[in-house]
């Protein structure tokens, strides 16, 4: 039986697609057969971040409408065994996502895959609702910033009231926080919300803290999930988060400022 994960946030631009690409890749690296689905109909981007944009022939909406077989739309990742991408349509609109259609595709995928990761669009409208409706687990991507935290709280409310599990009175969708674009130096200067502040406000368990990192842009430039950049902070943080998701006990790194040597301190002063 496969598990359905939704990567969601309410607010746009906080790192849902980056995190979806990284997380799906991480799960596949751990040996789980994983598919990541783009729910952002009309604003497809997961294909670019995953580096498979030139291999898209059929998409999620084609499969829902019966215009293509699921196997024709699934794109196998060229780097990682066990990793597949289901891109969305760039031309249709979100009304193409019917609940029955989405359910049919998810049911078919769940026969084959261990994890189905749904990359939610921003907002709380049809695309976002469909991406979270069937979820077993939700990863809430949040930036340490007021509008993002507020929108995350809103999406938690939606998960608790409008998901399939909520509607059918089943066990609630598990919720975990992925705090991205965290800058420990700014936190120390009192310019940014602390991890603990965000946890206190949202009151859900912490899955990981991904530091603000130049590696993220570099990775998306070349269509590589940032988790594959093993030397980068962000890549390591995602790898840790995947481990925690699988139940491992891993300490949180990247929460405190890195100790600077005397030399770099002097350089910073003079800069």
């Amino acid at each position, binding site marked *: 039986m496969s598990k359905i994960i939704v990567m969601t946030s309410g607010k746009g631009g906080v790192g849902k697609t980056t995190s979806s690409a990284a997380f799906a890749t991480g799960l596949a690296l751990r040996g789980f057969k994983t598919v990541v689905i783009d729910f952002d109909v009309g604003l497809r981007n997961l294909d670019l971040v995953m580096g498979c944009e030139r291999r898209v022939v059929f998409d999620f909406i084609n499969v829902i409408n019966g215009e293509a077989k699921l196997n024709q739309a699934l794109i196998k990742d060229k780097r990682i065994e066990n990793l597949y991408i289901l891109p969305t349509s760039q031309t249709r609109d979100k009304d193409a996502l019917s609940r029955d259609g989405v359910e049919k595709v998810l049911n078919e995928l769940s026969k084959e895959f261990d994890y189905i990761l749904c990359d939610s669009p921003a907002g709380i409208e049809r695309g976002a609702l469909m991406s979270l409706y069937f979820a077993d687990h939700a990863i809430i991507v949040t930036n340490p*910033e*007021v509008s993002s*935290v*507020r929108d995350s*709280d*809103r999406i938690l*409310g939606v998960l608790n009231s409008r998901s399939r599990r909520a509607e059918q009175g089943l066990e609630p969708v598990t919720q975990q926080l992925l705090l991205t674009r965290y800058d420990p130096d700014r*936190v120390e*200067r*009192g*310019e*940014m*919300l*602390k991890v603990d*502040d965000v946890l*206190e*406000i949202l009151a859900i368990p912490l899955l990981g803290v991904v530091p603000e990192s130049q590696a993220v842009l570099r990775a998306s430039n070349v269509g590589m999930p940032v988790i594959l950049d093993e030397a980068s902070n962000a890549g390591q943080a995602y790898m840790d988060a995947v481990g925690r998701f699988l139940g491992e006990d891993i300490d949180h790194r990247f929460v405190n400022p890195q100790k600077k040597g005397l030399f770099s301190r002097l350089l910073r002063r003079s800069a």
Partner: protein
Amino acid sequence: MSIFSFFRSAPRPSAVQAKERLQIVMAHERAGRSGPDYLPMLQQELLAVIAKYVDIDQNKVEVKLDRGGDCSTLEVNIELPAREQAKAAAAAKAGDKPAGNDDAAAKRPVSGGSVNGSAKKRG
């Protein structure tokens, strides 16, 4: 950096303000999530009561909600018609009472606690 800045109290970090503002706004949003939004209904019913006694223009009504830490205020501003119109309206209505006094804007609490009403009057 001047030597005096050592004696000045440090400004409150912006992150602290961010946290406080979030806690306040989200406490209200979470509370409101469970029940239906009662404000439009409240406004209609208040207006219905006032309209029984005073002839008011539905377009000259302003409802404001200000959310604070432990106390919120609901301010309802209703612009009453000019005195002559008010008298005419009062005469037209049976069992009506003439609309209060005059020029100055009078603030009258509609009910205690967190709900305040202020009725503005044009003379």
